[in-house]
Every structure is written in C-alpha cells, then in structure tokens.
C-alpha cells in the first residue's frame, strides 16, 4: 500500500519534470540574431533591475543598507548582452581603476555574488523569507564566470562591481570580452 503511494508520488514528480523540460524547450529559443552585435555592454538601467523586484530583501542588485551606516556598499551594475552564432568560449576581463592606479572595487560572478550576499544579508539565511528569491535571481542573471562556454543564441547577464560606499570618483571601468580567444570587444566607462 505504502510503496504504491510512493510510486504514485514519483509518477507525479516525473510528470512535473516533463512539464519543466517542456518549458525549457520554449525558453531555449534565444535565437541568434544576425542584425545584432556579438557583444553589447551597457550600464544596467533601473528598468533592467526592476525585473528583480523593488524589495531590497529579494533584489540582489539593490545595495545592502544599515540603519546606522546607510548604504554599506555601492554597486555599479553592467549588463552584458551576448549574441552568438555557435557555442563559444567566453573570456571576460573587467577592471575598475582609480586615478592612483588602485582597484576601485571587486567584480562578482555568480557563485561569488551568492557568497557575498550570504555574508552581507542582514537576515540569517533561515530568517529572510525572500532569501531564496534573491539566490535564484543571482543564479539566473549573474555572469556565470569570467571564463566559460556559452551556447549559441541571445543571452543577457549582469556583472556587479562592488565597492565600500562610495565608489571612488573618478573610476575608469574597462571590460575586454574575448570570444574563442580570438574576437575581442572593449567597453570603457567613467564613473564620476
């Protein structure tokens, strides 16, 4: 009796996995667009980041704030749009340099940004009802790594530069993107 019930539950689980895989086939239609550039890097707008919600407990791209110290860190968020005709190796080299030559902050990719929030979030992991939402948002949207294989198609990622508040002004931000170690694209921005 009991084993039958468990078997039935696993049939339910199997059906849900089929449903998820069906959704996946819809979502993987990020088709390569020959009218768009291979790489486009811009500063993320407030509209871009609003998709993660206006609740600071849920949106990983809203800076941590303290009752006493105000904004603890300052973020500068880059949006990286990739449009690739074939699966390619992506290498990204970001720099944020002050006029004296020192680093202005640290760029975080997916796993390191998750660790950042585990450290900075004012709530214990078990106490923030939106903690899971925040971590899933990072998993989905943050640049996977500075070097990784990207499948063909059109994809968007976010790359946060994080510095103790405020980010030193002026700061020169430069990003070099290499596709299959050959093609390269450069982006320069001045934070002032």
């Amino acid at each position, binding site marked *: 009796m009991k084993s039958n019930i468990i078997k039935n539950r696993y049939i339910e689980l199997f059906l849900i996995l089929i449903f998820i895989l069906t*959704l996946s086939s819809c979502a993987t239609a990020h088709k390569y667009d020959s009218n768009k550039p291979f790489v486009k890097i811009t500063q993320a707008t407030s509209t871009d980041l609003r998709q993660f919600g206006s609740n600071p407990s849920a949106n990983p791209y809203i800076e941590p704030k303290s*009752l006493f110290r105000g904004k603890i860190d300052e973020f500068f968020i880059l949006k990286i749009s990739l449009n690739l005709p074939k699966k390619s190796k992506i290498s990204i080299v970001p720099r944020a340099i002050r006029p004296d030559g020192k680093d202005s902050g640290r760029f975080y990719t997916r796993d390191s940004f998750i660790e950042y929030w585990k450290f900075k979030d004012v709530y214990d992991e*078990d106490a923030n009802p939106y903690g899971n939402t925040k971590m899933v948002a990072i998993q989905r949207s943050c640049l996977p790594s500075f070097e990784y294989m990207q499948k063909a198609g059109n994809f968007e990622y976010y790359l946060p530069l994080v510095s103790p508040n405020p980010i030193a002004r002026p700061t020169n931000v430069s990003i070099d993107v290499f596709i299959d170690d050959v093609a390269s694209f450069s982006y320069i921005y001045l934070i002032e």
Partner: protein
Amino acid sequence: MKKLIVLLLTIAMVGAVSAQVTTSVKLSGGVTLVDQAGNAIFARDGSGTETLTFKAAEKDGKYGFSITYPDVLALDATAVSGWNVYYVGDYVKYTLGYKLSNSTFRASLDQYSKTSFGRLSGISDANGIFLQSTTLGDLIVGAFFPVTTAGGPTLDLLKGADAGVKYTIKDIGFAQAYLNLATGANKVGAGFTYNAIKGLTVAAISEIGIDAKKYSFGVSANYGGIDKLTIHLQACDVYATTNSFEVYGQADYALLDNVSATGWGKFVSTGNVMKVGAFVDYSFANGLTLEGNGSYDFSTSKLGADLTIYYGVSF
C-alpha cells in the same frame, strides 16, 4: 556571554576600520505592538526572537568565521545556534563548526516557510567538518563528516558522512541532491529549480526519510513578469502514517518603492484548514519594516490581526 559579545563587537569594530578584514554584526527580530487581543509580544523572525550574528572574513573571502545567537535579548539566552570557521583553498572550501548548515545543496520552494514541506533538509545541521569543491565550474560537490564532543573512532566519521551535489545548467536552472546520514535522520532528497523564462521560477523538490518512512514532495511557481505584481503558488504533499496535502497562494503588489500589499490563502487537508489573509509592509529607515496583518481562519471562524515592527540592522 556578555563578555563574549563585547569581545566580538570589539573585533567587529577593529575590522570595520581595517582594509584587510570585512566584518558584519547583524541583529534582526520583531516586536508585535498590538494583536487582536490587545497584546504586545516579541515576534519570531524565522530563526528565533532577536537573532544576533557576527561575521568576519579576510577581504577576498579566503577565510573567516561566523557565530549566531538566537533569542539574544531574552534574559536567559545562553546558547549559540551555530558557529563556523572556514578557509577557501585552491580546490576545496574547508569549514569546521558547530551545527553547520549549508544551503548549497538544499533546494527550496519559492515561499519555503509557508507550507510544512518548503525545502529540503540539506546536508548536515550537525557538528563536524564540511568540504566543498571550488573549481568544478557549474558542478559543486560536498561532503560532511560529523565529529561528536563525546569522541569516537575516526573511521566512524565516514559512517555518518553526508554528501551533496549541485549542478547548474546555464540559462535553464539548477539541480540539487543530497544524502543526509550525519544527524541520524537518514534522508535522501533532490530538487530542480527552473528559471529560464524571464520572471518565472518553478521549483520541484522531493525528500524521503528512510528510517521514518516519510515521503515529501513539493512544487512552487513564482511569476514576477507583470510590472509591480508578483504571484506565488505552492503545493506540497507529505506522506508518513497518513497523507497531508497543502496548497498556498500569494500575490504581492508594490504600491510604492517602500510600500507593498500582499494577499494570501492557504488550504491544509489535515483538519480541512482554510485560511486567508492580507498584510501591508512599510519599509523605512534602512532596516525597519512596519507590517499590518489581518487574517481569517474558516475552520475556527477566528479573525486575526496584528501590527508588528520588524527590524534587521547591521553595523
């Protein structure tokens, strides 16, 4: 305990002015100012009433420690709810601690605290040594080896070891699975979170308690693609000696950047419990949230209401 807290605060303050160390002191909790009976009481925020956490890490996060006290403002608070020290090596992150909890392999439903099975038990929640890979890209593997204060043969560490795995499929989602033997609960679980469609997250999780012959399964969906509206749906089924089924739904609407309104409803098959409710949150002063709650329980025909202030402050 007071001396220890003063010591940790001092370390935190020293860390705050040091470029080589990052520190964090956090206090979170809540106070119900008034409820439907006209009472005031400290409110739980999930981990307890008034949770105090100290964390410190080397500036690049290579090593650090964390210690958490629950119920810290209660006069009889003496217990630590957990502590750990860690070092991130070239290939492995090593963590040693008391009541180690690691969320890497613990899949969760969207609103995990809203139904009785909202997330997997995960790996450990015991005392010991935890190892986690750092260089396998989208794959993370981990193992936990329990060490007791009573002591015992070193080889026994292997008997109660936990194991976990997480694999991210870029632009699709991620899967987590684990085997938990260390706490004696003997559980195995797995979950998949799908997030390929902008604004939509779907999660399915399942866990079997081998000794308890308990089976749990849950699924959730979260959709935030409609301007200021976010919709959450969640259901779970827990089978032990009897079967219990729960369904939960919630809609959040952002009225302003710091004001949101939420409506929710819940059904639990055991006892045919049906509840509905609504609350409004007002966030202010970088860490304070004033929440007004109202609810109605159809099974007991009882109205509930409270006005609670939650705080999460850090230094």
